[in-house]
């Protein structure tokens, strides 16, 4: 069998497009359970923080490590070769937030409660730029909902983040998983 230049070019184009699509869907399927997990953690963490504000730091001090452990278990089950990256990303976000708060100290808990989701949403957008548009849409949605709740519903912001922010993450995870 001898192929023409046009046939070869067309075949290489098909290979590249299919490979990209395969990598994109793989990326979605890997990230979907993490979004659902963190959506559930947000829902529980923000709701409990709203009901028991005096325990907010304790609640998150338990919820975040629990989420990291659960995320590592998910990656372990998926036999991901890059499990360490999950912890590294979480540490990078924590370090960034800590550094930011140390030079621009928040005046209230509501700012902290909004800032961290905005950092996470930015992370989704950045990862999405490289891997797939659904992550970009998810990141923008989470950021927009966070800002919307922060400015429009300040009195009920934590509850807003529990229901709408957590719900948005869970929905984004389901959406990615079905791609």
């Amino acid at each position, binding site marked *: 069998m001898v192929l023409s230049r046009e046939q070869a070019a067309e075949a290489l184009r098909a290979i590249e497009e*299919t490979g990209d699509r395969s990598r994109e869907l793989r990326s979605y399927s890997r990230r979907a359970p993490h979004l659902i997990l963190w959506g559930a953690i947000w829902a529980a963490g923000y709701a409990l923080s709203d009901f028991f504000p005096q325990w907010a730091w304790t609640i998150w001090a338990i919820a975040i490590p629990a989420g990291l452990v659960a995320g590592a278990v998910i990656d372990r089950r998926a036999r991901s070769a890059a499990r360490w990256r999950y912890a590294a990303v979480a540490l990078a976000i924590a370090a960034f937030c800590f550094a930011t708060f140390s030079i621009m100290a928040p005046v209230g808990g509501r700012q902290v409660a909004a800032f961290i989701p905005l950092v996470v949403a930015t992370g989704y957008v950045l990862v999405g730029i490289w891997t797939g548009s659904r992550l970009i849409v998810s990141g923008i949605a989470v950021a927009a909902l966070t800002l919307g709740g922060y400015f429009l519903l300040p009195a009920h912001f934590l509850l807003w983040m529990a229901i709408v922010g957590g719900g948005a993450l869970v929905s984004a995870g389901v959406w990615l998983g079905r791609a």
Partner: protein
Amino acid sequence: MGAPDELEADTVIHQPIRLKIMAALNALPDGEAIEFIRLRAILRATDGNLATHLGTLEQAGYIEIAKDFVGKKPRTRAMLTREGRRAFERHVAYLRDILDPVSKR
């Protein structure tokens, strides 16, 4: 000195659907399988068409098919074999060679 190692088209792989199946599997890390439904979504192929071409690639030894159950749901997964990955790389090299024969090997 022996004859040069001439590249040539792999007629099993070159068929358009099989070429895309191989491209989709080649994009995964070594030893990772892809579910039939995800492959169908990537290729936008019908169940019957996809199954037929998967069978051809399996017979050629280029992929492995694993069937099991997740709960009560049947699951079919396909994975590139080492031989399949090598054959695909050879075919891609052949295609590139047609477009750019000057820089070949």
